[in-house]
């Protein structure tokens, strides 16, 4: 098998020397800094994730608070609108009532006035009719009937008229 399984101190010696050189140089110059970097980055990622989680929780809390606030504001607005509506309704009722009462009183006043005017007019007409009748009767009779008789007669006649 030639030198496939032969003992070779040279190669062993150089393996140890080379391995030691690689271990010393790369161990201190490359792998230590790289592992430190990896550890640092690992810690950084862990911290960042924790921070992100915290921030997310905070944001969720804020969002919840905001939602609550909006709901509260909406409810308040609704209450205000409702209160306004009921006030307006009440005011409307009051105004209508008031107007109705005023109108009624105006109507009554007008009626009373009209009645008074009518009574006055009727009294006047009556007086004039008496006067005219007296005048006419005097002319027809040619003599003066006593004023008292006349008035009695006329009033009787008028009453009869009035009754019919």
């Amino acid at each position, binding site marked *: *098998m*030639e*030198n*496939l*399984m032969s*003992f*070779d*101190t*040279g*190669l*062993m*010696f*150089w*393996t*140890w020397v*080379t*391995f030691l*050189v*690689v*271990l010393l*140089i*790369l*161990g*201190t*110059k*490359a*792998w*230590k*800094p*790289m*592992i430190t*970097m*990896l550890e*640092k*980055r690992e810690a950084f990622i862990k911290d960042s994730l924790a921070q992100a989680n915290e921030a997310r929780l905070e944001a969720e809390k804020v969002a919840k608070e905001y939602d609550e606030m909006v709901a509260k504001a909406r409810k308040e607005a609704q209450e205000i609108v409702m209160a306004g509506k009921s006030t307006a309704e009440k005011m409307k009722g009051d105004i209508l009532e008031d107007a109705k009462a005023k109108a009624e009183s105006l109507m009554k006043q007008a009626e009373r006035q009209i009645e008074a005017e009518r009574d006055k007019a009727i009294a006047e007409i009556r007086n004039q009719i008496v006067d005219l009748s007296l005048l006419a009767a005097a002319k027809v009779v040619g003599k003066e009937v006593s004023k008292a008789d006349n008035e009695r007669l006329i009033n009787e006649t008028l009453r009869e008229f009035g009754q019919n």
Partner: protein
Amino acid sequence: MSAGAAEAGKPIGTKIIEHVANSDVMVPLSLGPLDISITKHVIMLWIAAIVLMALFLIPTRRYRKGDFSAPRGFLNFLETIVGWVRSAIVIPNVGASHAATYAPLLMSFFFLIVTMNFLGLIPIFNYINHGHGGTTATGNINLTAALAIITFFAVIVAGIKEHGFFGHWKNIVPGGIPWPVMFILIPIEIMGMFVRPFALTMRLAANMTAGHVAMLAIFAPIFMLHNMYVGVGSVLMNVGITFLEMIVCVVQAYVFTLLSAVFIGMSIHPHH
């Protein structure tokens, strides 16, 4: 097979082994009694280390300058893998509190092995040795044994660091066991201590070698039958195997690193 016509007489099996095996000594060197000659796998190991260091040191310059903004492009890719090794291999086995201590070691395992595995898939490095010898350094048991020995000692050091010298050796056997069982358990656990790195050694080396042997075996009929049309089938099959090998490259580096992490973790947390 760039071996050429001069070697045509050799049996194909020999040639295949030649291609996955290490080269002959290229630069003879010695450190006292120790032979530390440079071979092709040593060169591949160095190339892998240089490529790996360049890949990591160039994009991470900004970190050393204090620019810690989010990574982009290639650095992002590297960080994904580093992050994966840390979160899938280191932390689950060693524990988050010990991760900083053992992550550099385990990452050195993973990245050095994966780089050597992938460089072995690139056929151009064959020309370092004029087409002789494999280029997958992790296919050489000497290299994987050296890495597994590092794991072996890392396990012991981790245990002693956590529980003290005697505490660690006491932890090798689980507590609360009747004393006669100890006669069986202690030898088994001590054997296990050595079997684990041995298994790491063989698993990685065998897996990396096996892929290349399979690919070379699929190419072999072209030369055995002296017919280039056989190559159509060989090439198509080997394209598929190359994709498979890419998965194996990552998986084997992962397995070696994962098991090392598991063994170190067992030594730190013995009663789990």
